[in-house]
């Protein structure tokens, strides 16, 4: 193996071996994720452009300060969203563990870690559903922004439009990721991968799931922190 991995790259295209040294599906998953990165990038850059072209912007600590089951008017900025962030990071870790178990042909490990990943995904979606519902009750939605700018001046609907569009698009990705992981779980449990002799498909699902986590790193920073 070491000889193929460390071979000079100029010889990679000389034929006789795979220039990327990964299977076709994985290369295509990478290219899909790259296109998805451009989609999210376009969304976030558009958000940044609008924010830079406006004089004021709502303070995230003022908007995202509530917590489930907490008394009305409680002031807990950043707390709920940091829990969401950790849920997604941990579910990413269990996904890596599932991929690793797949390398070792350890069916039990794959199933166990996939279940944890799915639970993490569902937990994240539930948190997001609660937050959307809460904001909607406060009067925030596409085209309606009840919050003021940080400096106390009137705010435009750009803030809520971008928030719901981008977190919604990300939430939809989490949802698809959960569906993909459920399919992987069913395939693992019905010995589909054992019959094939490898768990490579888990790796592709894993790439997608990590990408969802990666996007959240950016969304979390852009909307909740800065």
């Amino acid at each position, binding site marked *: 193996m070491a000889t193929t991995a460390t071979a000079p790259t100029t010889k990679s295209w000389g034929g006789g071996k795979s220039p990327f040294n990964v299977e076709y599906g994985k290369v295509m998953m990478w290219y899909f994720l790259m296109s998805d990165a451009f989609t999210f990038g376009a969304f976030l850059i558009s958000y*940044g452009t609008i924010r830079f072209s406006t004089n004021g912007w709502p303070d995230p600590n003022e908007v995202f300060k509530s917590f489930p089951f907490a008394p009305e008017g409680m002031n807990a900025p*950043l707390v709920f969203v940091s829990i969401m962030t950790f849920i997604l990071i941990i579910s990413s870790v269990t996904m890596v563990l599932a991929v690793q178990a797949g390398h070792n042909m350890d069916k039990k490990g794959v199933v166990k870690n996939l279940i944890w990943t799915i639970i993490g995904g569902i937990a994240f979606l539930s948190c997001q559903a609660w937050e959307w519902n809460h904001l909607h*009750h406060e009067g925030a939605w596409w085209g309606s922004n009840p919050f003021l700018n940080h400096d106390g001046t009137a705010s435009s609907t750009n803030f809520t439009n971008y928030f719901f569009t981008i977190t919604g698009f990300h939430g939809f990705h989490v949802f698809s990721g959960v569906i993909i992981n459920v399919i992987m779980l069913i395939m693992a449990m019905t010995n589909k991968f054992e019959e094939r002799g*490898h768990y490579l498909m888990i790796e592709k699902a*894993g790439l997608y799931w990590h990408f969802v986590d*990666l996007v959240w790193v*950016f969304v979390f*920073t852009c909307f909740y922190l800065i």
Partner: protein
Amino acid sequence: MSHTAEHQEHAGGGTKEIIRITVILTVLTIVELIIGFWMIDIPLSSVGLRLALKGTIVILMMAKAFYIVAYFMHLKHEMKNLIMTIVVPLALFIWFIIAFLYDGNSFKNLRNTYDPYFKEQSTIKVEKKAHGAAEKHDNSKEAKKASH
């Protein structure tokens, strides 16, 4: 398939590496949150400090992104060919971000200079929960409170 079979053998650094990356990601997130909490108490008037903290958060964000892509998505252990085919196109983002944010900022300056209404709107303070658009939503909030 022989390539992929071989490929698995040199994959990553095992469980130890996963734990290491998990700890790094957790610590980076906690540092981000500490800065976020700190920023709550910093007044809007100290523009420079707020900007510096936001810049720090963005750098930490990039570090988190690197660790997720390099280790969780395993890109660091792939061949250089594959790394380049992913990373080089994404370098376009550097140009996109600079160009579009600069454009947005320039548009704001133009409007502040030539559009007196735009400028005026951003200086009028609005009373909380008393005016215009906010009023309608207050009703729904009151209704929600009542139903509790």
